[in-house]
């Protein structure tokens, strides 16, 4: 499918006036990128475009392109900031492959995307024209050099006098261009301008009404410019969904899910890309009876959450990899004291400070095994924005009923990705209750472990006759410190047994595609949409490829080995590091596998392969399809 409209103009030439009836090109999937220097508002523009498309009934998925600094030097490839919006006639589950249409505020940020291979060959590029004829000779030279490099892409350029146009109605083009572009994109994509106006009013709802109105004027200017100057239109047919939909990013969904679960305390310390959960909650949580406690550090954040959980309702903490490392000792305490706790880890690239704003799935093993000593816990990973919402309700319930720690692993892709999904039907039963403060019967102990299940009912302060000291030291049922071998072995078994009991309540993961075949791809977390799209494309091409996606990583869902047996090849696809076969010194004996792959190999004794990458961006379905083809070309004997 060629998704490119024909050239509106020749390269480097000003856009020609549109004819009375522009040519309309219809696509069912379409990717737009808006990139600017950091701080010029490309994200607000792109997100608004995505929201408008979702409201019109398109499937949509947006991904932020974020530099690590607030204001890196402008007009450099490193300052590229913006958003990719993928829209479709059907639901969109991932960011896709290369972009079809790009709006760039300068040629340097465009170059950044070109160099990353983010742009489709022959893509349409709407580029600010002012730099070509800028008074500064260095800028003109940079433009010329960039244009030579960009010539490789065979792109169709439409030069847009963004600043010149914006200056006709505003004094500060830095703060107006983005809405001008929103109008431009809306006209080109046949968006309903009334919806665009309404979206702008929503975006600026907290500012004075004049702010929204002046932004609407800018948007209208952009739309009018497109009407006059752009000779093509792009139609991505949409239909109004038959059920109520909501749209938000994954971090907002985590925050709302937490409210739906009835948790009342979120203790956190600022860390990218997790912080926006607390931004969202700080705005709305108090009206719903909750507080966001910004602690003095990551350790204190989890400490406050444990203290709050110990004394009352389950609390939660939100962090990312480096914060998880700092919380390690407290996680062990929560597990040892069987204090219910929910921890959200919005994964980013690691190790150490790594790639703060970019996606990775590298915290899985640390989440499972990060504590010294045996520290069994539940680890779950939502795969979509919708699951970010619902998993918080589940996580709270699991933590409460198991008296344990639940780690929710999301990532930077889910955190900033925006997607419409069916509006949740809220249920008051999801809400945590205040703990029972009734007296404790004589025979009840703080850890009256059920011999079969390891489960016990917690006692909270305020309950008469329940007084005891909770301790991270080895303890017996009465919470009395003891180092007796039999007590310690039993207590370890009881804490572990709870996971086995919980595992029995889980269902095998569904298999996407066919029930058997030549290749099964196993994934977890945010890669689901890209993997399933690759499976769809592979099956359209007649390949016997399927996938399965794990929501629970600890304990693992049942039936995995039975599923694996039905495929001649099994491999994981993950965004974390693994050695590539064939690399120097890498042998089957010393190869380090992807994190889920390692777990599955250990758990099932199936010779599972992996394909993992750490590019700092979500995987593309096209890439995964190529991997599938390559894998199918190998001998399929591993799982025999």
């Amino acid at each position, binding site marked *: 499918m060629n998704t490119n409209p024909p050239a509106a103009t020749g390269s480097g030439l000003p856009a020609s006036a549109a004819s009375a009836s522009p040519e309309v090109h219809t696509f069912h999937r379409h990717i737009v990128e808006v990139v600017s220097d950091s701080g010029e508002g490309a994200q607000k523009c792109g997100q608004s475009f995505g929201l408008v498309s979702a409201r019109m009934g398109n499937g949509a998925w947006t991904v932020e392109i974020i530099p690590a600094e607030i204001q890196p030097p402008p007009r450099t490839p490193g300052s590229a900031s913006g958003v990719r919006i993928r829209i479709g006639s059907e639901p969109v589950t991932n960011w896709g492959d290369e972009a079809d249409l790009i709006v760039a505020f300068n040629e340097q940020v465009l170059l950044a995307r070109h160099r990353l291979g983010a742009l489709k060959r022959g893509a349409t590029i709407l580029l600010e024209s002012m730099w070509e004829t800028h008074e500064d000779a260095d800028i003109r030279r940079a433009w010329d050099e960039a244009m030579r490099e960009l010539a490789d892409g065979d792109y169709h350029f439409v030069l847009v006098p963004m600043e010149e146009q914006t200056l006709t109605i505003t004094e500060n083009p830095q703060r107006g261009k983005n809405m001008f572009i929103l109008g431009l994109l809306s006209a080109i994509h046949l968006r309903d301008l009334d919806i665009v106006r309404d979206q702008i009013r929503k975006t600026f709802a907290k500012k004075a009404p004049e702010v929204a109105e002046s932004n609407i004027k800018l948007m209208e200017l952009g739309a009018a410019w497109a009407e006059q100057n752009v000779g093509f239109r792009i139609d991505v047919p949409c239909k109004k969904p038959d059920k109520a939909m909501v749209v938000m990013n994954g971090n907002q969904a985590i925050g709302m899910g937490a*409210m739906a679960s009835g948790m009342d305390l979120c203790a956190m310390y600022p860390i990218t890309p997790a912080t926006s959960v607390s931004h969202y909650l700080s705005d709305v949580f108090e009206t719903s009876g909750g507080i966001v406690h910004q602690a003095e550090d990551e350790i*204190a954040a989890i400490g406050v959450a444990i203290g709050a959980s110990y004394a009352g309702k389950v609390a939660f903490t939100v962090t990312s990899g480096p914060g998880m490392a700092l919380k390690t000792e407290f996680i062990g305490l929560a597990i040892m004291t069987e204090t219910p706790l929910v921890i959200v880890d919005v994964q980013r690239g690691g190790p150490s400070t790594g790639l703060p704003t970019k996606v990775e799935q590298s915290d899985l093993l640390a989440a499972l095994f990060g504590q010294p000593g045996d520290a069994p816990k539940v680890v779950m990973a939502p795969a979509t924005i919708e699951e970010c919402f619902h998993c918080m309700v589940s996580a709270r319930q699991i933590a409460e009923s198991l008296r344990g720690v639940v780690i929710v692993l999301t990532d930077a892709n889910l955190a900033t990705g925006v997607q419409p999904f069916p509006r949740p039907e809220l249920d008051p039963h999801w809400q945590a209750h205040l703990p029972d*403060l009734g007296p404790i019967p004589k025979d009840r102990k703080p850890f009256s472990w059920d011999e079969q299940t390891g489960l016990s009912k917690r006692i909270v302060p305020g309950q008469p006759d329940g007084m005891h000291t909770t301790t991270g030291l080895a303890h017996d049922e009465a919470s009395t410190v003891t180092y007796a071998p039999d007590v310690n072995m039993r207590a370890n078994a009881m804490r572990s047994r709870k996971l086995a009991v919980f595992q029995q309540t889980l269902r095998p993961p569904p298999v996407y595609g066919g029930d058997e075949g030549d290749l099964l791809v196993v994934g977890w977390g945010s890669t689901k949409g890209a993997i399933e799209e690759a499976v769809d494309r592979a099956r359209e091409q007649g390949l016997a490829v399927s996938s399965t996606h794990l929501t629970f990583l600890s304990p693992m869902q049942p039936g995995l080995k039975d599923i694996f047996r039905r495929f001649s090849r099994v491999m994981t696809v993950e965004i974390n590091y693994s050695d590539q076969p064939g690399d120097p010194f890498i042998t089957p004996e010393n190869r380090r596998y992807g994190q889920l792959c390692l777990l599955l190999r250990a758990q099932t004794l199936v010779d599972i392969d992996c394909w993992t990458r750490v590019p700092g961006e979500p995987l593309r379905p096209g890439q995964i399809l190529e991997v599938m083809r390559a894998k199918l070309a190998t001998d399929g004997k591993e799982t025999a």
Partner: protein
Amino acid sequence: MSCSLLSCATEPDRLFEMSDYQGPRARWCPGCGDHGILTANQRLLADEQLKPETTVYVSGIGCSSRFPHYMKTYGFHGIHGRALPLATGVKLSRPDLDVFVVMGDGDCCSIGAGHWIHAIRYNVDMTVMLLDNNIYGLTKNQTSPTTPQGYASNTQPDGSYLPALNPLVTTLGVANASFVAQTADWVPGHLFATLKAAHRHQGFAFVRILQRCPIWTPDIFQEAVMDPAKTELLVHDDGIRDPDTEEAYTTHTWHDPADIHDGRRLASEPGTVRLGLFFRNEAQPRYDVTRRIPLQTAEEKIAHLERELDRHAV
């Protein structure tokens, strides 16, 4: 809370004796100052008639942090240096509970120093005891931040290299400090009076208790213990008063606890052991009060969330 009112109405009057707060026999060394501090706490709870079930002792790690195990209240024996975040969480989630924190000098002033600074500033209502024996005891004789300069230990056998950290001066230097006192395990009347004043204080009441360790630092406080003239009492009508102590310890300094500058001066002068209230200001903002949110029913919360979903509807 309405449920506690209900239980008050139906249960017979309960009168608590000291023994009602006594847990299993303490396993500290004979002669350890912690024993006396434990007794003072049990006496305080009986004196204040606190319900054992609504009283929580939170501690970190170290000799002194075993404290909650020897009480018959609720207790949370946490991890090294982190008692204050736990206690903050308890109080934020359950303002109805009476929260006490017990830390040692390694716990509070070294590994937990960051939390200490911020907890002072949060000024959450709790009674905070620093049991300061100037040494790491449980791990067997390592230099702590409060070990006097020159004092030998297993990690600094030629003597502590640096001047000791002064916990009173540190606390008094933090914005929003609201109650700073010092007492000693060997002056039981003063210890009790100080704990009582601390407990009644609405806010973060920080009490440094000089505490003897008979094993590793037996001589550190010996001069002050043997000769009352070496100890100076801070006295004031608004301060901590204990007539018996004032009779035995006759060196008195009149100090108004509202005067933080004088409090800092008195806390920082080396040499003299000063016991008493250095500073108190109940008007300082309390984080637990500022952040208190009225409870909501599940239905109210769901209604609120429906409105939130409306905002995100497409």
